[in-house]
């Protein structure tokens, strides 16, 4: 393990800029370019905002973000102790539809799938654990 870092946020979307700063720092440490960093920021924001919006329907709760970098992968584990929810089973959005037919939802998980290399959901000890990783092996 070369590097790890952690951030805990309350379920308030106004905290997203703090998340972005955290992800920027992790990606910079991993030596990623600005374009890749922006996309990873997008994937992590979508996953974390999903937890903020839906995990705690009755009030306040936290979302934990653990980042790890090794020689091959950049890995984020996003966890919460809210309602069981597996975002990976959500149906694919159809990106070929017209504007009239496109619905407003489902884009977040779609973007995560497009950007990250592996996505894994587990329910462990009454927590939702969503693991997102990106291969960063230098060519």
């Amino acid at each position, binding site marked *: 393990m070369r590097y790890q870092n952690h951030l805990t946020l309350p379920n308030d*979307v*106004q*905290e*997203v*800029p703090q998340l*972005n700063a955290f992800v920027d720092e992790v990606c910079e440490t991993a030596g990623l370019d*600005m*374009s890749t960093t*922006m*996309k990873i*920021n*997008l994937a992590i*924001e*979508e996953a974390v*905002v999903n937890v903020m919006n839906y995990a705690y329907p009755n009030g306040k709760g936290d979302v934990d973000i653990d980042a790890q970098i090794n020689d091959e992968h950049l890995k984020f584990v996003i966890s919460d102790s809210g309602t069981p929810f597996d975002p990976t089973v959500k149906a694919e*959005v*159809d*990106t*070929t*539809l*017209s*504007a*009239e037919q*496109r619905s*407003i939802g489902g*884009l*977040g998980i*779609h*973007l995560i799938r*497009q*950007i990250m290399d592996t996505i894994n959901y587990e329910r462990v000890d009454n927590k939702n654990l969503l693991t997102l990783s990106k291969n960063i092996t230098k060519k």
Partner: protein
Amino acid sequence: MKTTFKEEEKNFVMYFEGRLDTAASAEVEKSMAPLYECTGHDIILDCTALEYISSSGLRLFLGLLKAAKPKGSHVYLRNMNEDLRQVFAMTGFINLFEFI
């Protein structure tokens, strides 16, 4: 995140500056309200200084497009950088909007 609304040669133009993330989207949604009164005008969303957009921002753009189309108004995205274009490509939104 900053937005500026201007009327330029009969077009409704909104300038976006900064990061359109989930935290910014509620405020940006309010600032976009004048664009919905677009009958007889085309809309230009100027993205020259837009650095980032997440799905909450994409939803605002799609919502505007859906409202503008039946009024006969075009929605153009102006000067969007390559990274953001890739986000529009990933979601298929690249086929919905007109890029200038």
